[in-house]
């Protein structure tokens, strides 16, 4: 029997009790395969596994035997008026069938023009028209994947003047309309607060708790007075504060430690994950005492 078949997958915990995961990066493949390496779940960038075969896909198929997997897309561009690719959706659907992930997510962004894909998460004006476009795309995506997807708020460096919604209201409306969940990236909220003045704590308060399916924690760096969301550092103290606030509002939502640039040894990521797990335990203890 093939070890890659979906039917051989272990029964994973319900998403709400997944705990704290880390991003799957190629330089950690070996360390993750060591016996005794404890990580609650792994999040892979979907596009890195779009090829029909090869080593990366082989490793992902091996890891899914022992870890719940989340597939996180960075390249679909749900809000692109032109250049939206149904072929991309089909490749994602094939990967979802093969991996049977516990979570699937994408971003609230656009990324392509008529003749170019920018491979960057570009900001959408949060208008009725954008909600209509993204809402339809999310509905079709969920039909193609036969499951709910989570949509993530992005870090952005410019803001539109004329919008019909602020970000929490847009995400709430998108979730209510399409049935998708919200992946709330707290570092992105904080980076946007630094660069654009949009208040992060107020956003956490305004997000509808029923829709939140995952939280992202990551680091950023400061360049020329700007906060750059480079996923290249430890989680900032201000973001940990937002995390405590978010846990109180949303409960123990599956949480991811995201790190892409200047990737440290796996132990550093596991230590960040342990810190997040401690936050969850503290909130749960508080809840029992209250």
């Amino acid at each position, binding site marked *: 029997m093939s070890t890659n078949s979906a039917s051989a997958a272990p029964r994973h915990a319900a998403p709400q009790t997944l705990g704290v995961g880390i991003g799957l990066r190629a330089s950690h493949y070996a360390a993750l395969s060591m016996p005794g390496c404890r990580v609650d779940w792994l999040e892979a960038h979907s*596009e*890195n596994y*779009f*090829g*029909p*075969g*090869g*080593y*990366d*896909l*082989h490793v992902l198929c091996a890891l899914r035997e022992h870890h719940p997997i989340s597939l996180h*897309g*960075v*390249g*679909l*561009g749900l809000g*692109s*008026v*032109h*250049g939206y*690719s149904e072929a*991309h959706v089909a*490749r994602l659907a*094939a990967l979802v069938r093969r991996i049977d992930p516990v979570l699937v997510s994408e971003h609230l962004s*656009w*990324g*392509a*023009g*008529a*003749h*170019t*894909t*920018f*491979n*960057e998460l*570009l900001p*959408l*004006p949060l*208008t009725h*028209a*954008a909600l209509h*476009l993204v809402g339809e795309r999310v509905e079709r995506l969920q039909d193609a994947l036969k499951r709910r997807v989570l949509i993530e708020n992005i870090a952005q*460096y*410019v*803001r*539109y*003047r*004329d919008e019909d919604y602020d970000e929490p209201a847009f995400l709430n409306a998108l979730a209510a309309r399409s049935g998708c969940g919200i992946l709330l990236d707290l570092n992105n909220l904080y980076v946007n607060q630094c660069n*654009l003045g949009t208040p992060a704590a107020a956003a956490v308060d305004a997000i509808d708790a029923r829709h939140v399916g995952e939280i992202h924690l990551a680091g950023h760096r400061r360049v020329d007075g*700007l906060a*750059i969301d480079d996923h290249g550092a430890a989680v900032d103290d201000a973001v940990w504060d937002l995390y405590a606030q978010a846990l109180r509002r949303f409960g123990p939502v599956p949480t991811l430690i995201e790190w892409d640039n200047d990737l440290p040894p796996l132990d550093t990521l596991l230590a960040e994950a342990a810190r997040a797990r401690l936050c969850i335990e503290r909130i749960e203890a508080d809840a029992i005492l209250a």
Partner: protein
Amino acid sequence: MQSSLERLQADFATALRDAALPPALAQALVGSDAQLAARLRLYRGNVFAAWRHALALAYPVLQALVGSDCFDTLAERYGRVHPSRDGDLNCFGAAFAAFVAGDAATAKLPYLSDVAALEWLVHRAQRAADAPMLPRERLVALSPGELLAARFPLHPACAWLASAHPVCSIWTAHQTHSTIELSRVAPRAECALVTRRRWRVTVTPITRGDVLALDALRAGADMDATISAALHGDRGFEFAKAFLRWIECGVFAAADAPPAR
């Protein structure tokens, strides 16, 4: 009629491609022109950095040959002429070899383009579909007549090219633990075979006859016609040696291999 969202994205795309900030976009965004120009520069930098990074992953030997600065310049120019068309950056760079051949900075080093072409075959082989190899036992059991009439499917990762330059030696000299020294590579024509056994992609020097034979195999020829095609263009073609090389390298997939996804 263009919707306002469509117009906005078209203007944003223009700002990412050119340094200019379209007035309509400046009006649609919060901030002074100077501030917006800086922020859009950041986005433009991210886009080109992502493209450059993708090319560097696919073309490490080319980068080593021309140096990082020249490579970055090439990557930037390539991105302008052949921008990405796919949300999967592994697909970016398919036309890089042709671009390098025509670029003024690299056209005077004609081997660079062929090295790039070889690296793209290696890059594609890394993510090609998995398939079991044709087992050697199956081949030994064949009578000569059966072998001549046989048609073997090529492995999905198998690819090859013929070059007027020593591409195989240059590529191999850049691999760790290589026994080939770049400074000792003699100018000569070389043909390269790219295969993947399990997960490891290898590049093997092959003859002109191998290339003709592999072309025939890809076109669906049986072994009889394959050997004829090779002998036709390469009088020195030695089938027994070549066949052994193909099997060793993993050129063939098992006939009953599951079809590529």
